[in-house]
């Protein structure tokens, strides 16, 4: 059955190629090469390293990213033999394969791990698209990976930040961070005020999401601290509405925090924005009114 093992193999080989090309191309970038090599090791051998081994691997990745003097190449390059509008075809093959695969593999169970069906389909789309590029554009065998390395260099260490933050969340959970924050926030609710409880619940979801970078980490904490005891059990709120709208209030927090690196910092790097926080700045004016909407909605329908 095709599952995460296959995905990690593809990702590991891709990062290994980035690493190899970082030392073989001039100017050589040994810092980048080491960084990509360690990520490739994580993808290819992570399951054999053991927990502590993986922890040491993370420390090595952080050391290289901090001390390794990573850099990127000039981006000014003229397109070689510009092609016509057919260029959209390989680009669209990726989402279309992801879409078609998601539905097709649901029809034939047992072939692809049902939990990973979209990611597997996406990966197959990437491979298919790459084959089309090779057949049609006839680049040198290493050329796509050379171009991939160029884009990857622009993202740099930010590439691994989302995975690091997810792991930090696990350590926070182990240390019981959620309960402590939940108790603290629970103390500041004015007693007897439904509106006060709704406001603290929604703002707390958003704020805790800002800190953790992830509404998933904030949700169990805020629901246990305020949602269940006050909104649901004391004021009789409908559980589905309290939960669903609370989660969406948390998503408003995701829009404004650098801790949600994969949504906010990586795109800024990928688009080569001058301002690292440019995407966040573009989202704040949507996030604030939407958070107010969620507070009002929950108060009205609870």
């Amino acid at each position, binding site marked *: 059955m095709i599952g995460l093992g296959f995905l990690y193999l593809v990702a590991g080989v891709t990062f290994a190629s980035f690493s190899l090309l970082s030392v073989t191309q001039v100017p050589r970038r040994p810092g980048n090469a080491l960084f990509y090599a360690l990520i490739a090791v994580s993808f290819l051998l992570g399951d054999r*390293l053991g*927990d502590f081994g993986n922890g040491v691997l993370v420390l090595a990745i952080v050391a290289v990213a901090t001390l390794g003097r990573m850099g990127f190449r000039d981006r000014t390059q003229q397109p070689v033999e510009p092609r016509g509008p057919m260029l959209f075809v390989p680009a669209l093959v990726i989402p279309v394969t992801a879409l078609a695969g998601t539905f097709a593999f649901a029809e034939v169970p047992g072939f692809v791990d049902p939990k990973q069906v979209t990611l597997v389909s996406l990966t197959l789309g990437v491979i298919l698209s790459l084959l089309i*590029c090779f057949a049609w554009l006839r680049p040198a065998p290493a050329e796509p990976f050379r*171009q*991939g390395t160029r884009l990857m260099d622009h993202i740099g260490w930010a590439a691994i930040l989302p995975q690091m933050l997810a792991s930090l969340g696990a*350590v926070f959970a182990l*240390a019981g961070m959620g309960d402590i924050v939940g108790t603290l926030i629970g103390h500041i609710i004015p007693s007897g005020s439904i509106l006060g409880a709704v406001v603290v619940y929604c703002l707390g979801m958003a704020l805790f999401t800002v800190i953790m970078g992830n509404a998933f980490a904030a949700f169990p904490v805020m629901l246990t601290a305020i949602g269940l005891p006050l909104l649901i059990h004391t004021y009789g709120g409908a559980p589905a509405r309290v939960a*669903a*709208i609370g989660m969406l209030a948390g998503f408003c927090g995701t829009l404004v925090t650098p801790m949600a690196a994969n949504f906010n910092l990586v795109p800024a790097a990928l688009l080569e924005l001058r301002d690292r926080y440019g995407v966040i700045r573009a989202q704040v004016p949507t996030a604030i009114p939407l958070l107010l909407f969620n507070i009002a909605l929950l108060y009205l329908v609870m």
Partner: protein
Amino acid sequence: MLVLAGIVVIAAGFMLRFNPLLVVIASALVTGLAAGLDPVTVIAAFGKAFNDSRYITIIYIVLPVIGILERHGLQTRARDLIGRVRGATMGRLLLVYLGFRQISAALGLTSIAGPAQTVRPLIAPMAEAAADTQSEGEGDPDQAKALAAATDNVGLFFGEDIFIAIGSILLMKGVLESDGIDLAPLDLSVWAIPTAIAAFVIHGTRLLFADRRLKRRPRKP
């Protein structure tokens, strides 16, 4: 109480602009030690979580394809295409993309679009080209690109919760279940619809206002 020091480390580290990777690992160590765990346990816990969340970093496998297509002029083609559509503006383009992203995410198709898959190769260059035409070359190209990435996020966040089998819905179901409240995923996902509509209206309005600002700019002295 001491474990809150982990949050202080994160906030201070980001504010003082240390390398965020270093800040994260420092916060993990401080949090773990404050909770009375020994350093080896903290590093092992971090390593296990890192290994379990590798799927987050898979998306970069699309870069070789995007890179080779850009080398052959994909972004230029995207710009040309938007230039040929009559009445196309940055705001309208992104409004259509917002709707597409919300609806596809609501059908559970969260990975078919994203910063690497669609925004960098297609949507950002199109938005940039449209904004450039509207402001007669006076606009800030970064603004259009940032707004394109923002639109992708808003569409994803406020669409995906309508899908019944998405992670957040399953998480809500699980947490409520542990308190003895049994809900069907559909009960939860219908309550994502009002906020999805509000997100479309609020962000969509901003996009159309951004168009008006672009048009006004060249007339200023």
